[in-house]
């Protein structure tokens, strides 16, 4: 299935790319916040709109990282029962889990389309005075993130349920444990 493999490779690279961007973006936020604190205390005036930028950024960062989180098995889950299930049952449980994930983000995607169009066409803004931030980038990121989440749930199902190889990288369930 060369087409499927290309699709997986493409979505993996896109997910990774978005994750890197958003991680660096989160890093930049800390620098921005420090600059704001320094500006406020030393020069006497804060950078306008830092609060608004940080708020918008966090929402966008999360959806940029969503695809990678799913693909890299970083999403938190209780895998203890999965580990002791016989093979067939485990595949069924995994398939069910990925299908539910797909449906959830499909619903979020469908629900977000109309507000996104509205935000774009009416140039919707929000902000508490200091800086007026357009709404559409956040909405568009949710669309992009949910779409990639859907693709990655399909990819995860192809690999974990149907046993499609993924170029040597093992899927050790122990890696999924996070606290």
């Amino acid at each position, binding site marked *: 299935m060369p087409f499927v493999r290309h699709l997986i490779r493409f979505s993996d690279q896109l997910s990774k790319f978005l*994750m*890197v961007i*958003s*991680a*660096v973006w*989160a*890093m930049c*936020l*800390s*620098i*921005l*916040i*420090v600059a*704001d*604190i320094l500006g406020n205390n030393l020069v006497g005036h804060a950078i306008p709109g830092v*609060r608004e930028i*940080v*708020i*918008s950024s*966090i*929402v966008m*960062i*999360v959806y940029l*990282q*969503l695809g*990678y*989180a*799913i693909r*890299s098995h*970083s*999403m*938190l*889950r*209780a*895998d*203890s*029962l*999965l580990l002791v299930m016989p093979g067939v049952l485990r595949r069924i*449980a*995994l398939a*069910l*889990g990925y299908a*539910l*994930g797909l*449906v*959830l983000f499909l*619903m*979020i995607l*469908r*629900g*977000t389309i109309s*507000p996104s169009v509205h935000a774009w066409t009416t140039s919707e803004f929000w902000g508490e005075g200091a800086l007026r931030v357009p709404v559409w980038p*956040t*909405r568009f990121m*949710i669309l992009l993130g*949910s779409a990639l989440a859907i693709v990655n749930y399909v990819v995860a199902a192809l690999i974990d349920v149907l046993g499609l190889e993924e170029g040597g990288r093992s899927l050790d369930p*122990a890696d999924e*444990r*996070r*606290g």
Partner: protein
Amino acid sequence: MFEVNIAIVLLVSLIIMVMLGVHIAVALGMASALGVYLVTGNFGVVERMLASTAYEALRDYVFAVIPLFMLMGEFIARSGAVTDIYKGINRGLRRIPGRLALATVLGNALFSLVTGVSIASAAAFSRVSYPEMKRHGYQRAFALGSIAGSSCLGMLIPPSVLMIVWGILTEKSIGALFLAGVIPGLMVAGLFCVYILGAAILRPELVGAGRGTAAAAPAASPVSAGSPPVEAPEAVDQMALWTSILGIVLVVVTVLGGIWFGFFTPTEGAGAGAFIALVLAIVKGLRFRDIIDCVLAVGRTSAPILILLVMASLYSRTLAMTGVTNAIQDAFLGAGLGPAMVLLIMIGIWFVLGMFIDSISIMLLTVIIFEPIAVSVGFDSIAFAVIGVLAIEAGLLTPPFGLLVYTVKAAIDDKDISIWTIFWSSTPYWVVLLLAVVLVAFFPGIATFLPKLMF
């Protein structure tokens, strides 16, 4: 009985999904979607509510604290400051029995002032202090127990990701919750030390007695080969030690001091802390590549938590909308249970959940329901937060799936030690945590004293 039926369907489907290994964020989202659908019977409403939560849930300045605090902890963890401080404490404790294990507890207490996650501490100390204890002939299980047990301090002593999540869920001041964790955290650390001292005195073979300390301690760092006293347990690079201490003190004073004295919001504190930690990491010789690794590691771990928070916000809205919270609350209160009984049931549920899922997921599933009940039977909400964190942390040390024990096991990579050995030697530590739960339940002042002083 309309609400009760929906409550049962919602909770049962949630539990089934979680147990089947469905991503917890997805389980929360789908259970909520089901609940909303059962109440409204309208699929369009479900989609609109999902979309609005996806957009609104994280739109608060406070959510940035999670990635920023994690970034701070990651920078400091990788800078080698932990190793320096561990060696420093170690040197300071010469001649005290079980000093390597004590240094692990104290080092953890100190490290938890700059990190919010127990897993990070467990992994770091498995690499730093386990080889040291092994070299000095400590019983290996005892050594590993002390590492797994004391890494719990990470979640108790501020800044703690669990406290942040608790604060977000219950709409309590994060600064106040941070303060509430200080005395219980020190108390637990103290009790850990008492246990280790007691064990070291009563059973010296646990801590490698009979083997000369000085003989077993060759100088580790060639840099300081000329200057240190010969009896030093471990040669320490003074320059490195002081840089690390100074850096950590600066981070602690700026971040926690700034938040508590009202100079900073928690978000500003976390941003400043991440920045200082970055500078410390660069001073300690972290390369550009390492810094990028830190940033990516935080990206991988923080995004799933934030997604969980989005879905938890949906779940809490659904519970409120369908009246499930009230239904459960009425059932609890209607049964005429006393506060002690209520607490016992909750701790039992946390303990069982702690065997299967991680602490943040446990909070998201239970706190929204438990907190109002606890408050209505007379618990102080701040003290209850500390009780919750203690009990949930205890679950991370208990078999069969205690996460911290698995982290330690994975980090040491020693085939001879079975997971059950580590579970067994961690037992005293979770007993201490449960003891702390009882103490805070009976004397809530332990938790509420400092927050009342400041806020």
